């Protein structure tokens, strides 16, 4: 990454008359816009877009990219985000003209390959999740959560059980869980965690009744702990007539170990951009496929890819009990292709090592730092764990300071101030694609920071010192929002 900030805006290169792309010549005389469209519905002034040549555009964005930290730049231990390596072959197979020019409405007989890839990934995810069927339509993890909760609502509605309007979510859950529930029209009830971060079963039992549609769990949870009572939880939830939802954000450590379906979960989503290596893309696009156990298939969203006995694929829009449509088409097809490539690359013999190696890496870091950092929940973690800041807090050095100092040392910061169970949460997830050398370098940096907190806390509190920019004035940004180039120039 660059040490000097590149902060020009493309608008600042704009000069009237410059062009970065030309179009095919046309000789059709028919149909000028002025002739075709009444003046009242035409635009008055042309939009204020930049006018730039191609080399300037390429250089501009290339320079901007050097201000960014990605997985390809360095270690990105962002907890609960599973920032694993994004294999290059996936990109080669996704960004190809063989796919780019397929229109989603073209006849099935001209898209059998695309539908076959879709179908194949559905089958593979069903096998890995221990589910009967998957839809790949949801566009993101949060979209998957929403879709999964709609599946559950459709199931209850189909049984004529309209009283189930609540969803139980642990207080340690990802913020999207309650938000997805609210969008799905469900009321959120929080269940407490025990000191070790797992669900308080007694509290859960108290809150379960005939008004509860579902219980949403992340397993392992956001503190990296496996819910060892999951069989009993599943039994209790099902006995109350509710369904059990698996938030697949933390599926990575379970690869090769256990399947959500076998744990008793009824509905799950998977973040393909976490467990299945598709790039995070600065926030997206991702994909959030949703799986269901046997008996819930008919509630999945339309359209659905189906295969007949001759192996011919079509897309079905029909299903009376379906929750409805949640996407324009069949999801983020090129993201799905990347995940398919990843699973096939690992194959049955390697995919089982993903979870164990991710878990080993997390425990290795935890054991290497727990003498200096506060470990609120001891014992083996899974793919991630949480420190509650430094053990010695006398210097006043906070988790935010530690995070910023890590940027100076060439690492991305872990997830900070989440989960909300602790004041100084520092949530570390290394994934299986980091070498022991990288982990050692990170451990050394964390130990140096703990040392600096003792010897030179004031400088540490001013971090970062070596990033392209210094601490931004976020209050100013929120008080006087300047959100466009026009805002900057007017």
């Amino acid at each position, binding site marked *: 990454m660059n040490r000097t900030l590149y902060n020009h805006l493309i608008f600042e290169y704009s000069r009237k008359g410059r062009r970065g792309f030309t179009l095919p010549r046309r000789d059709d005389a028919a149909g000028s816009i002025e002739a075709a469209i009444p003046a009242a519905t035409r635009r008055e002034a042309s939009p204020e877009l930049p006018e730039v040549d191609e080399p300037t555009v390429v250089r501009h964005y290339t320079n901007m990219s050097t201000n960014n930290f990605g997985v390809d730049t360095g270690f990105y231990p962002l907890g609960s985000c599973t920032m694993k390596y994004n294999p290059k072959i996936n990109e080669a197979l996704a960004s190809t003209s063989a796919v780019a020019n397929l229109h989603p409405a073209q006849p099935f007989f001209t898209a059998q390959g695309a539908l076959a890839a879709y179908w194949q990934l559905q089958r593979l995810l069903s096998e890995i999740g221990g589910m009967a069927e998957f839809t790949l339509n949801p566009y993101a993890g949060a979209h998957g959560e929403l879709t999964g909760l709609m599946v559950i609502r459709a199931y209850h509605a189909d049984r004529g059980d309209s009283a189930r309007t609540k969803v139980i979510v642990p207080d340690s859950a990802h913020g999207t869980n309650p938000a997805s529930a609210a969008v799905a029209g469900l009321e959120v009830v929080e269940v407490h965690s025990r000191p070790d971060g797992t669900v308080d079963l007694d509290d859960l039992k108290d809150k379960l009744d005939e008004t509860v549609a579902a219980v949403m769990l992340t397993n392992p949870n956001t503190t990296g702990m496996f819910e060892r009572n999951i069989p009993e939880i599943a039994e209790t939830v099902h006995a109350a007539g509710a369904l059990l939802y698996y938030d697949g954000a933390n599926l990575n450590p379970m690869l090769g170990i256990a399947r959500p379906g076998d744990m008793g979960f009824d509905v799950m989503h998977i973040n393909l951009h976490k467990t299945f290596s598709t790039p995070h893309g600065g926030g997206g696009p991702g994909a959030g496929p949703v799986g269901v156990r046997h008996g819930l298939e008919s509630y999945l969203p339309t359209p659905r890819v189906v295969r007949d006995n001759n192996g011919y694929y079509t897309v079905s829009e029909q299903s009376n009990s379906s929750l409805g449509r949640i996407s324009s088409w069949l999801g983020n097809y090129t993201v799905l292709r990347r995940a398919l490539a990843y699973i096939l690359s690992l194959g049955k013999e390697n995919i089982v090592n993903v979870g164990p190696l991710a878990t080993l890496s997390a425990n290795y870091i935890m054991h290497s730092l727990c003498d200096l950092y506060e470990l609120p929940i001891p014992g083996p973690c899974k793919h991630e764990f949480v420190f509650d800041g430094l053990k010695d807090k006398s210097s006043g050095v906070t988790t935010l300071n530690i995070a910023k100092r890590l940027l100076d040392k060439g690492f991305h910061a872990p997830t900070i101030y989440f989960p909300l169970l602790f004041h100084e949460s520092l949530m570390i997830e290394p994934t299986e694609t980091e070498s022991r050398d990288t982990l050692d370098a990170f451990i050394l940096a964390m130990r140096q920071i703990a040392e600096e907190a003792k010897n030179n806390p004031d400088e540490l509190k001013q971090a970062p010192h070596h990033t392209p920019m210094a601490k931004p004035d*976020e*209050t100013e940004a*929120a*008080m006087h929002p300047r959100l466009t180039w026009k805002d900057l120039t007017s």
Partner: protein
Amino acid sequence: MENIYYLPTHEYIRVEGDKGYIGISEFAAKQLGNVVYVDMPEPDDEVCAGDDFGAIESVKAASDLYSPVTGIVVAVNEALIDNPRLVSENPMANWIIEVTIADPTELGDLLTPEAYAEHCANEKH
């Protein structure tokens, strides 16, 4: 400081006759830090005891604002539209909405300044 009551969610109401001025407590203002925006209802809107009537936003957090009483909004503090930071500087002077108090007995369900102080002391842990 008589005639001031609190909710456990840190809203106060200062009662003057059949009117009340609702804002957030010193404790809440301190916790929030610099307030950057206050989302307020419109005059003539109804508020219900215990229901949210708006929200307050700082750089790091946003919280709902709950009404201590049932009533009708008489006025909103328009100074906060351009200068929301007033709430951070002096929350007791810079109320957020003025309401009519439909049922004065509701005040009995609220915390006294002493009870509220104790509530805050407990919340610090």
